């Protein structure tokens, strides 16, 4: 326990040291204020921007897009995963596709999505899903593969039907793996959608950052970056902690 605490403290120390270093470098004018502004100013600007409500629209837009993309990616990925798991022949055929899917730089499709669906939220949702669905399929397959055989045999001994086996035995057992898929789908949706907004969009956080950059509004730009980094890291860490707790519980049982 003491070692774990030492590790956490060291980690916090490193991060705090890094932020302080940035602050010092900026305050001592070692870097051009046009290149980098001190972290304390980023926080102050972010606070005024949040309080004045000028970025509320962009935040709402990005979060709504991400939410839709994650829900769709999880639903579609999960259904496909269950279906593929039930059909081993199809699964074998899809194996080469799933193995090389993430080698394809998915972003290059974004301009095509825009051409097909128009310049609105739809191509962004599709891009976010293009990242998330395969991860969810793989996580579902992984979870279903690892349902202990004893549990399945118990279900059969109790003469559970297909659906009740799924609801009472398979799902609880596969849950930690599914959660890993959800975590990845969320992270990928943020990456895909903010990057998409960055390249070509009419609103959203990514667009706001790109717009501030084009207009040499460094304060706005850095504050928005800080906002994105803090929010995404916070979400990821929450899901990570939850996942760890579920995994431990599953190992214990």
């Amino acid at each position, binding site marked *: 326990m003491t070692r774990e605490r*030492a*590790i956490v403290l*060291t*980690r916090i120390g*490193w*991060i705090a040291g890094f932020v302080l270093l940035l602050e010092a470098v900026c305050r001592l004018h070692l870097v051009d204020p*046009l*290149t*980098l502004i001190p972290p304390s100013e980023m926080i102050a600007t972010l606070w005024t921007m949040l309080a004045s409500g000028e970025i509320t629209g962009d935040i709402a837009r990005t979060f709504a897009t991400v939410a839709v993309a994650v829900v769709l990616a999880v639903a579609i990925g999960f259904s496909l995963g269950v279906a593929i798991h039930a059909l*081993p022949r199809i*699964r*074998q*055929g*899809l*194996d*080469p*596709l*799933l*193995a*090389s899917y*993430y*080698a*394809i*730089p*998915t*972003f*290059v*499709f*974004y*301009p*095509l999505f*825009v*051409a*097909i669906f128009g310049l609105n939220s739809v191509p962004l949702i599709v891009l976010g899903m293009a990242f998330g669905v395969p991860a969810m399929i*793989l996580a579902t*397959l992984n979870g279903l*593969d690892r349902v202990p055989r004893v549990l399945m045999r118990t279900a059969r001994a109790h003469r559970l039907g297909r659906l009740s086996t799924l609801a009472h035995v398979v799902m609880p057992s596969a849950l930690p793996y599914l959660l890993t898929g959800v975590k990845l789908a969320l*992270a990928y949706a*943020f*990456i895909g959608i*903010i*990057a998409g907004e*960055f*390249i*070509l969009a009419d609103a959203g956080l*990514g667009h706001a*950052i*790109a717009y501030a*950059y084009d207009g040499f509004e460094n304060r706005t*730009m850095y504050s*928005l*970056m800080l906002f*994105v*980094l803090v929010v*995404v*890291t916070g979400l*990821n*860490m929450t899901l*990570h902690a939850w996942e760890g707790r579920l995994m431990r519980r599953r190992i214990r049982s």
Partner: protein
Amino acid sequence: MSAPSSLPAAPSRSGLLDGAITIVVLVGLWQALHAYAGDAAIASPLAALRHLSGLAATAGFWSHARATLTAFAAALVISAALGIGLGLVLGLRRFAGEVAEPILAGLYSIPKVTLYPVILLIFGLGLGAKVAFGVIHGVIPITLFTLTAVKGINPVLVRTARAMRLSQAETIRTVLAPAVLPEIVTGLRVGFSLTLLGVLVGEMFASQKGLGFLIVNGISLHNVQQTTAVILMLVIVAVAANGALLWLDRRLFHRT
């Protein structure tokens, strides 16, 4: 991934067949999408292929391809050297590794595109920014894979190295690096894809040269054929490179 145990016969031939069927299905889907969305949105497979062969005959296309390739090669070399080195050192020093791992995992899952303006402000428009952008995408997965591999290494090997009083550099060179080679290849495969992604996104956002620029340029000039053709080429190259690394990966793992 677990291979189905019930189908052991002739795995390579059925694998090829599966690949062929997958390609046919994908091209069919593409054709269907073209029929649905029309010529203004996406070119048909045949038109894209024809346009690609036309593009390949022009010198301008190759100068764009060379720009991407130069940036990508530089980014990959830097990512690999930095990632493997960092991963080996962090894996060897338990404490430092446990301190760093969650930080790296956190950095891995943030949208790094948002950092692009910072990189542009530091490096200016051009090759340097593209390379740096590829590196920030590629270096973390390579580090994480190497780190995990070193952490999972057989402790007997490390103890033997210590008993023989090897220095840290010698331990890394003669014991650790060979032992974790298969995982490093896996890390390089993931790093390869992400570095390519980083370089291309960099070109799409702010560049006047390279394949990423050609893709965005095709859309803004309503030249959908050009966009589709360049994407087709990138997908083929990426999948082929991934296949080659996957093959190397499997060979290395099966050797031991």
